[in-house]
């Protein structure tokens, strides 16, 4: 295989260098797992854990004295916590989109990025799941959210979107975990077979004794396809259900039928931005540039451009509907969003989500690492403010002007928000250190296609030489 040379003509850019061998894939992907972590990793991990500890302290205080330490007060009873919940759930969606939907559409460029994107999904849902729980007045009764036989003979109300949310988010977490683990099994087996001692025992246990028998691959591929097929409607349902939390309320600014598709598009938008942020760092720190190529990042930037325009369209539709409805409350809410006390949040959202991604019309910027890194950060800032705008500006001036007030998050709100980032990055850093960040088995199948394509080109080149 080593005699294969690079193709003379490169029609579509290859997703991976065809001169690599299968063994190179195993060696290079598992390299970060087999060496001691660098200083950068340690500093990042230390910072993340510090933020988690900060959050733990604030939450302990909050559990002792109550939600009064937060900025929420009448009429804004949903604030930064719920904003964070919707934000983190949204982040997770890109992972499922990459792993399931792109799999069903046979987009083979997903192979290098699906593992880390799925990991991002799991950790984002773990982060999101914290917020409804800590937003409960009495977190220790969180199990009341589930229907279980109890001495009060009470059931949860299945007509409530908040109950749908419990089912949607817990199902989403479980199925994402199943899907991720299924993908990891062959790779754990690869690591088991190249290690000795305790590493072999641990990765061997994680691989469950996988050997790569064709009889097993046959089942494996079908099961993977089925999980992808289930995840696709699931991911669309999860953010739709999250949007129902708002859309089924009668509050102007929330009570609108555009919310489910608008929320799903926004979720994919912010999730892809987070994938770009993470991968730009990951490929640099773990020397994965040959696997996560500019081509992969460019494809993701195209999706950011597309979904950015979709949310821009949703903002315009929402505004137009409010003005055209003839409903004065609806109209007031939207004028208040753009020109009221929270105008800065609204215009941050519009600038970051609609204006900034337009730079990706230019191929040069789609392929520039510094540009895409900054854009991906700005998109996430914008998407955080989108949720903040929807939640807070709709609430802060409701039906009774005597109740109007300005919402000011406290230091505790911000500490927990920072802590949620620490929590997310703590898990992600552990993942990069102990799990293969790229799906070795899937990359090998793409590598073989690349080799065959290169081989054919080589034959064609020879034929041309003969002909001339």
């Amino acid at each position: 295989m080593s005699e294969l040379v690079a193709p003379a003509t490169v029609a579509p850019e290859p997703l991976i260098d065809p001169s690599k061998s299968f063994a190179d894939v195993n060696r290079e992907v598992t390299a970060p797992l087999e060496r001691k972590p660098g200083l950068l990793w340690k500093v990042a991990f230390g910072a993340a854990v510090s933020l988690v500890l900060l959050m733990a302290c604030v939450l302990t205080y909050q559990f002792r004295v109550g939600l009064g330490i937060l900025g929420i007060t009448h009429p804004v009873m949903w604030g930064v916590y719920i904003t964070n919940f919707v934000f983190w759930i949204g982040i997770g969606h890109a992972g499922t989109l990459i792993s399931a939907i792109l799999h069903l559409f046979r987009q083979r460029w997903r192979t290098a990025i699906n593992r880390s994107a799925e990991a991002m999904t799991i950790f984002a849902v773990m982060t999101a799941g914290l917020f409804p729980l800590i937003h409960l007045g009495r977190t220790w009764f969180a199990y009341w959210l589930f229907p279980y036989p109890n001495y009060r003979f009470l059931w949860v109300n299945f007509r409530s979107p908040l109950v749908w949310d419990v089912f949607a988010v817990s199902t989403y977490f479980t199925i994402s975990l199943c899907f991720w683990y299924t993908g990891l099994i062959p790779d754990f087996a690869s690591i088991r077979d190249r290690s000795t001692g305790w590493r072999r025992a641990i990765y061997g246990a994680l691989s469950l004794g996988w050997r790569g028998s064709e009889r097993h691959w046959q089942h494996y591929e079908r099961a993977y396809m089925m999980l992808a097929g289930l995840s696709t409607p699931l991911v669309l349902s999860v953010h739709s259900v999250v949007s129902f939390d708002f859309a089924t309320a009668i509050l102007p600014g929330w009570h609108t039928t555009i919310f489910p598709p608008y929320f799903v598009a926004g979720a994919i938008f912010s999730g892809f931005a987070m994938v770009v942020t993470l991968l730009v760092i990951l490929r640099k720190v773990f020397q994965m540039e040959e696997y996560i190529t500019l081509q992969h990042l460019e494809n993701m930037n195209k999706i950011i451009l597309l979904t950015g325009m979709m949310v821009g369209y949703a903002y315009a539709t929402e505004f137009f509907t409010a003005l055209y409805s003839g409903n004065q409350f609806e109209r007031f809410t939207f004028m208040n969003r753009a020109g009221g006390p929270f105008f800065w949040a609204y215009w941050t959202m519009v600038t970051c989500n609609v204006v900034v991604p337009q730079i990706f019309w230019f191929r040069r910027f789609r392929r520039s690492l510094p540009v895409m890194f900054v854009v991906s950060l700005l998109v996430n800032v914008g998407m955080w403010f989108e949720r903040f705008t929807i939640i807070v500006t709709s609430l802060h001036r409701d039906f009774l002007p005597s109740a109007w007030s300005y919402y000011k998050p406290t230091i505790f709100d911000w500490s927990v928000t920072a802590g949620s980032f620490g929590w997310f990055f703590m898990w992600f850093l552990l993942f990069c250190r102990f799990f293969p960040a790229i799906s070795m088995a899937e990359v090998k199948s793409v590598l073989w296609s690349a080799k065959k394509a290169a081989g054919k080109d080589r034959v064609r080149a020879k034929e041309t030489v003969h002909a001339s």
Partner: protein
Amino acid sequence: MLRNPFAKPAPTRGILALYEDPDRLLNAAALAKEHGFEGVDAYTPYPVHGLSEALGIRKSWIPYVTLVMGLTGAALGLTFEIWTMAVDWPLNVGGKPFVSLPAFVPVMFESGVLIGGTMTLAALFLACGLPDLKRPILDRNLTNDRFGLYVPEYGPGWNEERILRVLRGTGAAELKVLRG
């Protein structure tokens, strides 16, 4: 040791031919089928397309599990919602009907996906006999860069020489006789 009670014992005696690329393995698999070798299996680092056809392995039955379990989960979810909301304790919430079918759709759907998905994974474990940590590993490179064709020993009529003769012509990088 952790072991799935349904796992079949894996054969440990036989002949293993190791190839450097999947195309040679595909040819060898077709040849093995032509010669009527029994119980032939292939071991590959990633799923190679066309291999199960070459070996004559039947299609997986897992999609039926997903379908049946998904529908069962959805039915259970809906039944539970109707039972709790309309039978066990009918509670009037905002004048809505006790059986509010449109409002029951999200939880019904999520239950279907939850049961369908987890049972798909369970079916995969069952089909592949996972977990089974005691199974011997035929060759460490089979999860790395080697593609193996495995002809297990199948009884008194087993002719080692004949099988080796056939496999020698297939361009194998290595031929191993396992007597484990």
